[in-house]
């Protein structure tokens, strides 16, 4: 069987839309175009029906008690902003302290930074060398003015799954609201807002084979009832928490994407996991001096393989396999010219951070694709090492740390 190039292995950045999702969306662009807020005619009713069905399906997927706890947004960045700013503003009289960690997504970190400028105190917790936050650190960081903890379910770069249930328990005991950016993990790793004590959860459709530009925020209604100050003023949609006419076709798509994960999640996870293990086995059996970044299973995203290939620079590697879409923690691939802040927070040396490649495997990848990628990566790592002075020095037994490098 011949394979089609280029190959997409960047499923943490975005996922291709499942064709079944597209089919579910199509009627809501043309014949069923009604505004879900129109209460007095059938056009509005049929739009409202699909929106409410989608709410219930998504609630079921994340273990929420009711669809009423789902607020539609434009995506996870908005959900993170609404959760964190909304809580900070509402509970300001109660306290001014927020706890998060250094490997969170920028939508969380930069939101926290803005709140700091407005007078809030934020604790950015360290992670261990596998990218995991220590629940005891959270316990220690809580003071009597702590109003919010924000920790992600699953890291987008390294696939590390955080101990959400433990953190949820601590949050409950101390009466602190717990927000979880669950974008990368929903449907891939165990997640249940009731069992894990999560009060707010951010979700994005395009990371789960749905459309771009739509997401959700789970907002707990009972024990505790979480309150937010809306960040968008207008018609008071979404129980006053997020004004704006609902994006009905996309919400229908998100509902369908959630429905597919509910029904096929298990085989979907097994498919990604098996392919990832196949790629991992190939790379680790044929190359020396390569390192897995992040946790091992079960505390790892099933489709994530983040590897540092020592003595080979990440961008050069991506160029060598340019018919394969992956991403790298190398500074050369980032706008800031800094290597990945996630890998640095884990204490991964800068050289290894520059040498990292993230393979993100998903529903539509095949065994043939993985075998092609494995062979190409092995061949190109060897080629680039043949022209790497660092690999030559390593082979000669020179300790690279003993050399006085001139940083530039």
């Amino acid at each position, binding site marked *: 069987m011949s394979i089609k190039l280029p190959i997409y292995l960047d499923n943490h950045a975005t996922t291709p839309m499942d064709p079944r999702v597209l089919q579910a969306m199509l009627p809501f662009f043309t014949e069923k175009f009604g505004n879900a807020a129109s209460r007095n005619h059938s056009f509005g009713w049929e739009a409202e029906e699909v929106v409410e069905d989608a709410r219930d399906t998504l609630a079921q997927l994340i273990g929420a008690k009711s669809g009423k706890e789902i607020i539609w947004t434009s995506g996870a960045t908005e959900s993170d902003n609404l959760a964190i700013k909304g809580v900070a503003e509402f509970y300001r009289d109660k306290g001014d302290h927020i706890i998060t960690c250094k490997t969170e997504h920028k939508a969380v970190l930069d939101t926290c930074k803005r709140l700091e400028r407005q007078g809030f105190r934020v604790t950015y917790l360290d992670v261990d060398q596998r990218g995991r936050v220590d629940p005891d650190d959270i316990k220690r960081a809580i003071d009597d003015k702590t109003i919010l903890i924000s920790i992600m379910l699953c890291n987008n770069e390294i696939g590390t799954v955080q101990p959400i249930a433990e953190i949820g328990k601590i949050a409950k005991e101390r009466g602190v609201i717990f927000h979880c950016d669950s974008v990368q993990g929903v449907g891939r790793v165990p997640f249940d807002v009731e069992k894990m004590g999560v009060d707010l959860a951010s979700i994005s459709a395009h990371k789960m084979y749905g459309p771009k530009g739509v997401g959700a925020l789970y907002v707990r209604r009972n024990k505790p009832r979480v309150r937010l100050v809306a960040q968008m003023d207008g018609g008071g949609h979404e129980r006053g928490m997020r004004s704006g006419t609902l994006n009905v076709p996309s919400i229908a798509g998100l509902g369908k994407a959630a429905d597919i994960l509910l029904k096929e999640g298990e085989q979907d996870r097994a498919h990604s996991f098996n392919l990832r293990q196949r790629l991992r086995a190939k790379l680790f059996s044929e190359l020396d001096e390569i390192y897995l970044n992040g946790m091992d299973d079960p505390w790892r995203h099933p489709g994530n393989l983040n590897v540092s290939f020592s003595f080979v620079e990440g961008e050069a590697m991506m160029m060598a396999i340019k018919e394969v879409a992956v991403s790298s923690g190398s*500074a050369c691939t980032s706008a800031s*010219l800094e290597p990945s802040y996630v890998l640095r927070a884990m204490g991964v040396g800068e050289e290894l951070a520059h040498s990292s490649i993230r393979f993100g495997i998903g529903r539509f990848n095949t065994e043939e694709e993985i075998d092609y990628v494995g062979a190409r990566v092995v061949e190109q790592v060897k080629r680039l090492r043949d022209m790497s002075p*660092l690999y030559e020095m390593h082979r000669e037994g020179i300790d690279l740390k003993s050399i006085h*490098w001139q940083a530039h």
Partner: protein
Amino acid sequence: MAYSDKVIDHYENPRNVGTLDKEDPNVGTGLVGAPACGDVMRLQLRVNPETGVIEDAKFKTFGCGSAIASSSLATEWIKGRTIDEAMALTNTDIVQELNLPPVKIHCSVLAEDAVKSAIADFRRKQGEKRAEQEK
């Protein structure tokens, strides 16, 4: 990022990859950059001490495609030139030839540094050799 055709050509078919004997008194070695910064270049040249002509040049580079291309181009340019001519090579020559975007200019600077550092090493060795002979 989109690369120019010349960068891709040098990256896919690098000229003069390899190693010269760094103990040879006629070989100068320049090692510049740092692993923590994501690029290290080692550029070596063998000079005819009578004529000052660079008879061979080799490189190995850890770095992005532009860094590899810059060092490959530098070795190609200096081969057959005198060391004085090679000293006149500047990073802007490399930027122009390879069409490097602003974020990649440091790759060309590193290649210029590598050439100068290799020549300095050769001159240092020659100085030592003369001092040896005068003893």
